């Protein structure tokens, strides 16, 4: 067993060896520019891109012409939201999103607000889920876009995408979903799920970093975007820039593999997640599950260990590579905006750990992780004045804290 154990699959995933194998020729002999129309080098690259486009489209139930390659999800999100706002801004100025979105969506929304758009940030419920009813209630005459993530990257909660998509289509509003954490983990079908725009990032599904794509619906409705990058007019004018051929080939192979093994991987992740949670919760009291029990990514387990601070917990379990919902590690004392939007309370927000389970996680690693977490949480609770107060029966919310800094 290699230490530290990698349990941060929502942050990124290792490139699958089969993906790497598929990419290698395009770093070597097949180095052509896919836009070169006049010779075999270009044709070969173009063919590779074309095949990749087919594979990716098939994974999400789209057609090849609806795939626009980007450098990843952040760029795809910017292109989708700004591209729609620029194209349809004359029709309406209202956009709906949620507080639990990734920063790429939230910051893009803030950028659009500065340009005169009006953005509604819905609060998710305590499980991190946004309801169809909430979206419907927020809709206005001038709403042009709803942007909601499929699977939350911190707590793994799934939004009711199909229902929200239907609502949007009924109202003639475009629907964009950030599916970065969803594609490759759950079945995705842009037709059945009523999606107009959707982004994918290769490195979240065992592909390389630096490549992703945006699905842009071509019919019913035909979505038009104003490009955000000027240049040679690649990708049907929507995204200029020489295509990253090896990356695109890698993304396509990653999509194909995840499609083929979706069922077995779902089972694998579920079994390990349940094993981890049970092993921890059987031995520790006061463990809080963050997320939605019913609508949940199988490979994501977000637990809070109240009365233990997240950073000190990470320090104690440094043989395990995980993320903390508390952002103390990133030099700001703010807890995660996602947990905050779920209104879980400060003790929960400051003590959360996200365990990300993936294709290469083993039972042995899960057992090691559970043992370590139990040991460290017990030790830190021995050290915790809050835990002592709780054992004494003091309600922490009634304490008059100094909070001087």
């Amino acid at each position, binding site marked *: 067993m290699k230490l530290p154990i990698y349990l941060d699959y929502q942050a990124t995933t290792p490139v699958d060896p089969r993906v790497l194998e598929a990419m290698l020729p395009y770093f070597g002999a097949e180095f052509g520019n896919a836009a070169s129309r006049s010779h075999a080098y270009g044709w070969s690259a173009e063919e590779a891109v074309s095949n990749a486009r087919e594979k990716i489209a098939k994974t999400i139930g789209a057609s090849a012409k609806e795939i626009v390659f980007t450098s990843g999800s952040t760029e795809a999100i910017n292109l989708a939201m700004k591209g729609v706002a620029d194209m349809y801004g004359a029709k309406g100025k209202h956009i709906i999103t949620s507080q639990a979105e990734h920063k790429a969506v939230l910051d893009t929304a803030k950028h659009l607000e500065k340009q005169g758009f009006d953005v509604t940030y819905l609060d998710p419920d305590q499980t991190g889920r946004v309801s169809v009813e909430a979206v419907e209630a927020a809709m206005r005459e001038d709403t042009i876009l709803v942007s909601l993530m499929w699977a939350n990257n911190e707590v793994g909660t799934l939004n009711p995408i199909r229902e929200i998509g239907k609502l949007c289509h009924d109202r003639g509003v475009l629907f964009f979903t950030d599916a970065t954490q969803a594609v490759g983990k759950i079945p995705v079908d842009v037709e059945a799920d009523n999606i107009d725009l959707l982004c994918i990032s290769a490195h979240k599904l065992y592909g390389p970093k630096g490549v992703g794509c945006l699905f842009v619906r071509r019919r019913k409705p035909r979505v038009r975007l104003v490009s955000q990058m000027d240049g040679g007019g690649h990708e049907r004018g929507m995204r200029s820039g020489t295509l990253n051929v090896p990356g695109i080939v890698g993304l396509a192979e990653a999509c194909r593999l995840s499609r083929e093994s979706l069922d077995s991987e779902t089972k694998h992740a579920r079994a390990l997640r349940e094993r981890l949670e049970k092993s921890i919760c059987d031995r520790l009291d006061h463990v809080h599950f963050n997320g939605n029990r019913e609508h949940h990514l199988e490979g994501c387990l977000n637990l809070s260990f109240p009365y233990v*601070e997240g950073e000190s917990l990470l320090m104690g379990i440094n043989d395990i590579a995980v993320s903390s919902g508390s952002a103390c590690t990133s030099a700001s004392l703010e807890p995660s905006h996602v947990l905050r939007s779920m209104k879980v309370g400060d003790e929960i927000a400051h003590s959360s750990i996200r365990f990300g389970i993936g294709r290469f996680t083993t039972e042995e690693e899960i057992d090691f992780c559970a043992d370590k977490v139990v040991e460290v949480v017990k030790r830190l609770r021995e050290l915790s004045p809050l835990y002592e107060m709780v054992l004494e029966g003091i309600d922490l919310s009634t304490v008059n*804290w100094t909070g*001087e800094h």
Partner: protein
Amino acid sequence: MAYSDKVLDHYNKPRNVGSLDKASANVGTGIVGAPECGDVMKLQIEIEGDRIVDAKFKTFGCGSAIASSSLATEWVKGKTLDEALSINNTEIVEELSLPPVKIHCSVLAEDAIKAAIADVKNKRDSEKG
């Protein structure tokens, strides 16, 4: 984030963890910080006359906060109240090589010492009164 060896040492082997009888007239308790800030320190001292003979702590907070309070208990033991009052957070920063982002941990430890001393002095004054 990389921690200094001294922070790691205190985190792995915290000194003087525990609690003293807060009802005792010779024990001063200082609780500073707040859960929403991610740090709460409880530092207790036991005095004989003017001298601190024992100190205990419990801390909810990051590794640097744990180390700062652990160090604080080591330093106050054996000191008179006035000597303990003169402990400055910058000495803790220096001893533990805390980075700028963790200076608040040392401030909190200094506050905890002062709060514990104020508490025991209060008790003494009210007894006299």
